[in-house]
């Protein structure tokens, strides 16, 4: 074992063989590492460094080779399947062929890798005879002398540059750098619009305004997915629930805006038994015989709160289990949501259920300016 431990990084002393060691640019520090074969009392794992029995080595070699051959066969099978079979009848299309392709390509690939891994492992374990060796660990820090020398160099440099002596230079440099650092942030400004009042209204407001301009009472509710406007009589079964949107949202909103408007306007319509229903103060005429509409956007973090239990009249959000009471103005009864689901004022016009105004409060999660 080496005994000159004081030879450290950066020191220009003679190397282990008396030769000067040259520093290689881009390599880790030339901390000297001296590999010594383990001597005397090294209790290596059994078998290591032993002269292996020629016959068992031959056997091991054959085993490893077999695994490599399996790996070879599997990769050939992978290629053969891909070229010869996966592209039949005009290529892979659909679930059944994707399943077949995934099975064969994945299976042969896995087999190939694992067979090769097993082969290499057996090779290392049975054929390599390297003994475990001992190496020194080195002090990572430089010695006092080197540190002092570097500190000296550093100070000399600083002195020479004048940055310590000339505060005007130093300060104007900092001044020059500061706005330069801020400039990229300015560039990010056009990532999106400012919030303004965007979060405070939904497409219901626009649709109601349009309908009222035509002399109607409000906008009809259509079933999400089929766009069928709902009559009161259509939705008369107690315990009913359906997802609705304002009529015209699919047709009149620019195509790239449809999902965005949907995401705020989506509403659940519930038929709560009239005898159980307790309309909130000021909202006595917001329901139609127990047919009541709440925003489907959870007030917690915005998942669709859509799970309605007709026995308990609970509306549950499946994401984080906020639970609202449909009979009691969607009051929160459990879970992390802090506010009730906003309610949409409903009325009847020509037998159709209509919304007579936008939500009176912002839908969805709370935000700082919400108030």
């Amino acid at each position, binding site marked *: 074992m080496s005994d000159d431990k004081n030879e450290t990084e950066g020191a220009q002393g003679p190397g282990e063989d008396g030769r000067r060691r*040259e520093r*290689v640019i881009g*390599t880790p520090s*030339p*901390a000297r590492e001296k*590999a010594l074969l*383990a001597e005397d009392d090294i*209790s290596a794992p059994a078998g290591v460094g032993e002269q292996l029995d020629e016959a068992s080595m031959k056997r091991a070699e054959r085993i490893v080779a077999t695994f490599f051959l399996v790996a070879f066969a599997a990769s050939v099978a992978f290629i053969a399947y*891909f070229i010869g079979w*996966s592209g039949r009848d005009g290529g*892979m*299309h659909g679930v059944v062929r*994707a399943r077949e*392709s*995934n*099975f064969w*390509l*994945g299976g042969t*690939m*896995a087999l*190939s*890798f*694992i067979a*090769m*891994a097993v082969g290499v492992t057996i090779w290392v374990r049975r054929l390599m005879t*390297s003994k*475990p060796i*001992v*190496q*020194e*660990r080195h002090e*990572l820090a430089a010695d006092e002398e080197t540190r002092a020398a570097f500190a000296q160099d550093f100070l000399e440099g600083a002195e020479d540059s004048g940055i310590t002596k000339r505060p005007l230079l130093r300060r104007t440099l900092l001044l020059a750098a500061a706005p330069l650092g801020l400039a990229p942030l300015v560039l990010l400004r056009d*990532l*999106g619009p400012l919030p303004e009042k*965007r979060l405070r209204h939904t497409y219901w407001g626009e649709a109601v305004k349009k309908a009222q301009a035509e002399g109607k009472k409000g906008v009809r509710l259509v079933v999400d997915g089929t766009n069928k406007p709902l009559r009161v009589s259509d939705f008369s079964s107690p315990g009913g629930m359906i997802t609705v949107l304002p009529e015209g949202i699919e047709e009149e909103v620019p195509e*790239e805006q*449809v*999902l965005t408007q949907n*995401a705020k306007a*989506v509403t659940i319509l519930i038929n709560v038994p009239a005898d159980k229903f307790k309309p909130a103060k000021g909202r006595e005429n917001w329901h139609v015989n127990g047919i009541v509409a709440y925003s489907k956007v959870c007030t*917690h*973090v*915005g*998942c*669709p709160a*859509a799970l309605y239990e007709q026995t308990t009249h609970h509306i549950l959000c*499946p*994401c984080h*289990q906020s639970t609202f009471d449909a009979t009691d103005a969607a009051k929160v009864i459990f*879970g*992390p949501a*802090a506010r009730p689901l906003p309610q949409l004022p409903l009325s009847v016009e020509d037998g159709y259920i209509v919304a007579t105004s936008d939500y009176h409060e912002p839908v*969805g*999660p*709370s*935000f*700082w*300016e*919400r*108030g």
Partner: protein
Amino acid sequence: MSQATPPKAIEGTLGFIDERLGSTTFFRRNVKKVFPDHWSFMLGEIALYSFIILLLTGTFLTLWFKPSMVEVVYDGSYTKLQGVKMSEAYDSTLHISFDVRGGLLMRQIHHWAAILFMASILAHMLRVFFTGAYRKPRELNWLIGIGMFTLGMLEGLFGYSLPDDLLSGTGLRITQGVAESIPLVGTYIYMFLFGGEFPGQDIVPRLYMLHILLIPALILGMVTAHMMIMWHQKHTAMPVKNQTEQQVYGYPFYPVFMAKTGAYFLFTFGVVALLGAFAQINPIWLFGPYDPGAISSGSQPDWYMGVLEGALRIMPNWEITAWGHTLSLNVLIPAAVPLGIVFGGAAAWPFIEAWVTGDKRQHHVNTRPRNAPVRTATGMAAVTFYGLLWLAGANDVLAERFHVSLFATTWFFRVTVFLGPLIAFIVTKRICLGLQRKDADTIGHGVESGVILMSPEGRFSERHEAPREEEKTVILSKENARPEAPARDAEGIPAPGSKGPLGHLRSRLNRAWTFDDIPVEEHEHGHSDQKAIESGSEQVKH
């Protein structure tokens, strides 16, 4: 020994490189670099190799994936969705799955590799923590590791959001809700992130850029730094025979370690391919395209985001509204506090521990978990905390599978998330001390041999034998606690390290760290180990 000179081709190449880079000195020095052997040292390698798999398969996927939210009508080969409106991102992901040969396999391998990447980082970090391998001089690598795990979480979240299916859209919806809840700047961050209101048309292309360029580049840089630092500092070793602070004992890099790690590289590829071939992951065709009005029960994120999901689920509904402003504690606390505690705590731990123990030495030999009871117990408390939140993220699945009330599971987690870590701390510490006692017994008393002796007087006793040399080395690797000088000496002068409230705290923590340590040391024959235990912390070992 083999031939004196390597084959011409190799010599020629080496010569070519050496004359230009002077590389042979480096090779010469490192070719026999020693790597200590232990199975748990390979956990980190899973992450490295998974990362390589992620880069390869990810590149493949980009060849077909279209990061666009423009609406198209599907007319591909998956019949159940024909005629459905969807984004181009979802459409192209279906195309990769059903019309590109090997595309589904690559998608699945990519996703499985991501899951293994994160899982192996966590497993590796637990190994590093419980063996004390993060101590000086390796704190920087520990911090890099925490950084990589955090970046990995973001990378994963962004990655599984790209296909724009219903599940990933739900994840984005939650991300949006969390962003919106940030005080003061929340709505601005929301608008800037999504380029307008949710979902808009910008988020997928933006996440795509982050997912395939920025974050992988950062992770790649950190991986490189992590490996170079490890190489330079040399790997830690388990406290076994021949391993000391001054020397490392193990197999040379070339050829043994190289072959071993090569084999492990292949194993990682093999296992990921196995999963990709036989276990379906993220079947987006079953989830359908994103639709803000639709949702599924059991909507969960990938496992590494489960902690956040769990915290969001069990948080009570606290919200403060005052002076026209709303502060959503019900979102902010779960989003920031639990991970802040776990990651912030983990990042600060090496420095806190060094401060408390006053140990500023370098450590290259790991500690057995039992020999640092406070550390091990703290680690287990953190594991319990993380694990409970993680389970809470699946509380609906648990409620459904085990037929318990949903709200009961929420309450269960609300309570245990505080109690669990406490219990885990106490129990773990007791176990550690028990194991220390056993070690002291083994050293002092020897190992029960099973041989019963009868003395001339007719008394029976069991013969105890000295432990094997290897075992003894492992047990004696324990560094017995060195209690500090009392806070005040005989004259009432405070010790220099314990002045002021901070110093007071430090010396109290130091006592908590060491007071119940059970010294394990060799005694001369005849000494009873009982005595050693009773005399307790007065014993000082240098």
